[in-house]
């Protein structure tokens, strides 16, 4: 079709658009300042956030660290700052909570080209069984002292503070676990100052969301010096890049503490608090040999518990009842002997990490819930297990 039909000039939108495209290359790239000067001239301040981000990135390299990828290991040679992470460690390994906390430390470090430093406070015979580099640690400070063999949070906090001061850590990140990270975080914050955020559930750039008011409200603000992560809620890092885990020399410290540990108190398994116990041996209606039950609980040792039927019958006190109308247990392992598993009972063990069921009924609900289910009579298995546990203990 002609452009000059009937003397009327018709516009070709495609050609006009192409013309605009080529001309924009010649024009200087728009910038935040240009947009701001336009705004000053009277126009509404409209700034493309992408432009703002691009300009910030262009200005940043001077302040951030230099990271190099060698093979599959990312190396940070010159870090702009350090983020110290103090793990709880579970039998010499990084616990699942530690790994989530490391992810949070990584986020704080990556926001501004920093490096994550793992603080290991070990007794003379302890060592880290995990590969710290694979867990995403840039530097490791290993401090060995005999004081770390005993319960001494004061000495641990003093050591963590000494390490934080040596590397002038911008943030110290811990998991908010009872009697470990949660306690240590508050001690470090009290010693260092510079603020504390506990119960941190989300983190973006350098702002943290922490739950306050016993879970009713949340506060969002810049990350303070000490950050304690609620690892039950904080999202786990999706992909962890391997890092070099380069060792740093520990600071010289002399640890003095007012706390003297006198060890764990020997406890009768019958009085072990049910709600706190790690290993629970629970009896149901299928248990008739109570001497064997008590002997096994003492041999393991495990906290004794029972189903409602057993407590109703008076075989165990009411305080030992597990379930919706009894105690909610959160054990590492729950051994259910002769328990079929009513919904009310299963509700009481919902927080248990693993369940072992010993039951004669293959179709019991407890058997379906269990990680290890043995279809046998509890009266035969209990004495055999008592004998085996005692034999193994004597063998060592």
């Amino acid at each position, binding site marked *: 079709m002609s452009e000059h039909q009937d003397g009327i000039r018709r516009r070709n939108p495609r050609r006009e658009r192409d013309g605009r495209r080529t001309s924009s290359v010649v024009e200087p790239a728009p910038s935040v300042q240009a947009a701001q000067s336009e705004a000053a001239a009277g126009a509404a301040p409209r700034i493309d956030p992408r432009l703002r981000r691009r300009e910030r990135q262009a200005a940043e390299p001077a302040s951030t660290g230099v990271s190099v990828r060698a093979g599959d290991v990312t190396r940070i040679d010159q870090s702009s700052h350090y983020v110290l992470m103090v793990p709880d460690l579970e039998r010499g390994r990084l616990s699942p909570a530690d790994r989530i906390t490391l992810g949070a430390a990584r986020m704080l470090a990556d926001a501004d080209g920093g490096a994550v430093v793992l603080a290991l406070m070990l007794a003379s015979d302890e060592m880290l069984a995990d590969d710290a580099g694979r867990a995403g640690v840039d530097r490791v400070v290993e401090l060995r002292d005999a004081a770390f063999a005993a319960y001494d949070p004061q000495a641990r906090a003093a050591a963590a503070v000494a390490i934080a001061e040596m590397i002038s850590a911008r943030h110290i990140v811990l998991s908010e676990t009872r009697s470990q990270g949660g306690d240590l975080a508050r001690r470090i914050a009290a010693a260092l100052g510079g603020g504390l955020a506990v119960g941190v559930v989300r983190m973006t750039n350098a702002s943290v969301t922490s739950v306050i008011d016993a879970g009713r409200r*949340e506060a969002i603000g810049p990350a303070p010096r000490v950050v304690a992560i609620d690892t039950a*809620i904080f999202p*786990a890092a999706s992909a962890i890049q391997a890092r070099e885990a380069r060792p740093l020399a520990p600071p010289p410290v002399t640890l003095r503490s007012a706390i*003297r540990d006198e060890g764990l108190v020997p*406890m009768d398994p019958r009085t072990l608090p049910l709600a*706190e116990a790690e290993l629970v041996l629970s009896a149901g209606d299928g248990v008739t040999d109570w001497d064997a039950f008590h002997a096994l609980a003492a041999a393991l040792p495990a906290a004794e518990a029972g189903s409602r039927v057993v407590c109703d019958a008076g075989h165990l006190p009411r305080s030992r009842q597990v379930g919706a109308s009894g105690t909610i247990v959160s054990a*590492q392992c729950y051994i259910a002997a002769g328990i079929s598993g009513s919904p009310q009972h299963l509700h009481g063990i919902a927080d248990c990490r693993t369940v072992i069921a010993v039951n004669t009924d293959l179709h019991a609900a407890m058997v379906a819930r269990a990680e290890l289910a043995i279809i*046998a009579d509890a009266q035969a298995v209990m004495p*055999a297990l008592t004998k085996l546990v005692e034999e193994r203990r004597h063998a060592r």
Partner: protein
Amino acid sequence: MPANVTVLVSIGRNPVSGRVRRAAADASALALALRIAGKEAVEVVHAGDAAAPGLRDYLGMGLPRLTVLPVSGNANPAPALLGYLRHRRPALILTGERAEAGEASGFLPYWLAGELAATLLPEVVDLRMEAEGWGAILAAPGGRRRRVCVAGSLVATMGRGATVAPLAAYGQARRGEIICEQTDTFAAAAESRVIKPARPRPKRLVATVAAQAGRGPQVGVAPEEAARMIADFLAGRGLLV
């Protein structure tokens, strides 16, 4: 005789209904203080509003009087408490591990211990005065109990494992006296954070062991073989000591 045991109490909130009450952990701390020192040697301090409901519940536990340091609604009670405690120098400060309302970060006892150069013990279950300091029983992971000794002044917090405080007596709660101590006034610091109602955030489920799940129920195994399987399962998780 000046009081040598100070209990710091706060106004609690029922976690389910939100109803104002005495804080459970603070009440446990007060019950322990009354047991180890008797009601004449215990001083109970609350920084906040003297007319707050729930405060008299502490008096109902058998206290003749309670000291209140007036602090306005959202101001930090820590400086007022520190000023008061510096002046009193108690040998033992007992309190709950964290408040049931407000910031509830659990940091106050740690901050006070740092400022007063006292030792802090968390998760105290029982406490006794000994020749060279304090002997304490602490709640340890796995429901176990640990004995520790501390020399010098002590800040002890109670939470997990603490005995539940007895109920408050209504008559005693009415009779008890609330004394207001005048302290320096501290202005509330400007809040730099954004405060919002909490969003419901699901807790991560406890990971069940997938490797074992595929094995299915073990049928027809001898008792000895069953015992070996259970022992290996427990040993693999470090639960057999």
